[in-house]
């Protein structure tokens, strides 16, 4: 656990930038697949369900997982750590 303001700020920044990078990788991975391999994106994984549609729906699910994951981290780790720092500063 970080024990100072700076360290906590840096941790939050690292989490934010890593999650942003994951989101970019997911979305641009999807776009680049569509752009460079259309036949693969159009191939059927089940009757009526192409790989492209499946992955598109998964991109939407990924945004939900990432926002929930960040919020869980912020609620469980970041907020309590910040509270501790506030209490220490108040003493």
């Amino acid at each position: 656990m970080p024990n100072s303001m700076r360290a906590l700020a840096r941790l939050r920044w690292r989490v934010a930038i890593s999650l942003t990078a994951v989101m970019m990788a997911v979305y641009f991975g999807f776009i680049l697949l569509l752009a460079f391999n259309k036949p693969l994106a159009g191939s059927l994984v089940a009757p009526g369900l192409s790989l492209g549609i499946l992955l598109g729906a998964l991109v939407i699910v990924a945004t939900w997982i990432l926002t929930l994951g960040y919020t869980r981290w912020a609620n469980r780790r970041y907020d309590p750590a910040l509270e501790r720092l506030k209490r220490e500063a108040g003493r």
Partner: protein
Amino acid sequence: MIAVIQTPPVGPSATSIGTTNPVAIGFFLLFISITLGITYWAARKTKTTEQFFAAGRSISAGQNGWALAGDYMSAASFLGIAGLVSTTGFDGLIYSTGWLVGWPVVLFLIAEPLRNLGRYTFADVVALHRRQKPIRVAAAIGTLATVIFYLIAQMVGAGSLIKLMFGLTYETAVVVVGAVMILYVLVGGMIATTWVQIVKAVLLLSGAFLLAMLVLSRFGMSPTALFAAAADKYGAGVLAPGKQVANPWDAVSLGMALMFGTAGLPHILMRFFTVPDSQAARKSVVYATGLIGSFYLLTFIIGFGAMVLVGPDAIRAVDKGGNMAAPLLAEVLGGTPFLGFIAAVAFATILAVVAGLTLSGAAALSHDLWVNVVRNGHAGGEEQLRIARGATVVLGIMAIVLGITFKGQNVAFMVSLAFAIAASGNFPALCLAVFWRRATTAGLLASMVVGTLTTLTLIYLSPTIQIDILKHASAWFPLKNPALVTIPLSFLVGVVVSLLTSKRAIDEISRFEERERQMMWGA
């Protein structure tokens, strides 16, 4: 980019679209009376500038989540994506995902710092501890450019949409939208605007949900059975990417504008000042992402439903751009009354979006330009409120005039222009100002100016303007959307100029820890 495209109905058809629909007018009047009732109630709670611009910081996380969704789900995303899917199939999904992936970025990078560092506008955050005037002017220009291009697209869409659905004249429709919107914002400020967004978001989501469920009920509640029926009827190509990704770089560049543009849209950013603290700001994005993502999944079902049950040719016969796919589908599934309901929902959608845009434009004019530039930050509460209301009326009238001026023009590109300016002019400066110790006044100013100007220039030189609108044979700049070039450029300029001017800005740089503390703890 999709937006509502204005084309008159072609020839007689089996639909009642384009004729006066009493059910639509009934629902619409109901929406107007409810929202004006809310406005009347909100007026009594709107006495200070903080209440006018930030609803007295009294909006809860859940309410703000719905309002963010209401602000974001425009008619373009409802009618446009459903239309695109119904006529081309898969490609609509590229927009749905693109418009959603900006929200996690807003959550990770922007929402909480913004809430703790600013008061009414994102310029508060960029200008904190720095020289106020140059930054406020540049940020206000970025805000107003985004707001005005977005407004033009919405107003022109409103005019032609309402003409198609209600049988009103284009000008009447634009004036009605403008007048009602001015009333919401002028009288009820942010409280009324927020509740208009919430009511609209609930209506839009329940309308879309009902429509999608009615579609699925015809296919044994199975989306894949629906897709299979579409592929049977129109070929397997409708399940695969098509023309929208003809040029990979275009697709990536558009994706960047959508992803980072959301984090630079002034009317979205402004919503984070309405909640009590940064935890509420955080939670509200989670709600918004859930709601908007569900909405885009529904529009995908609606689009394929319209393809199978109405047919691409019948949809194009009513409106070349395909924008009437969802209303036509509603008519097939629920007759004229359901068509009327969906038409009224679309109207309400446009009204709410223009209200949010106008309020954020008014904040830039009064809070950034008048109070902090003209009056050097010394303006009394009464004066601030008076100027804010004056700015609302000015922007509202401007929206009406621009809507009528651009009648019949192809304004679809203006939404992508707004996103590109937000992504390249506003977002990089905001990001650098919050997270980078060495960001200086000169650096942030250069980032905003270069980001906005290169975006405008490259869009002018792009195929969208040169080939599609000016009918030239070729375009100097190859990409339809410049974000791939302008976002990195704007960051680069911000960094280089900051480093070059760091010696003269030691005071600004030395207060980074103070900013960081405020970012985490609040003011």
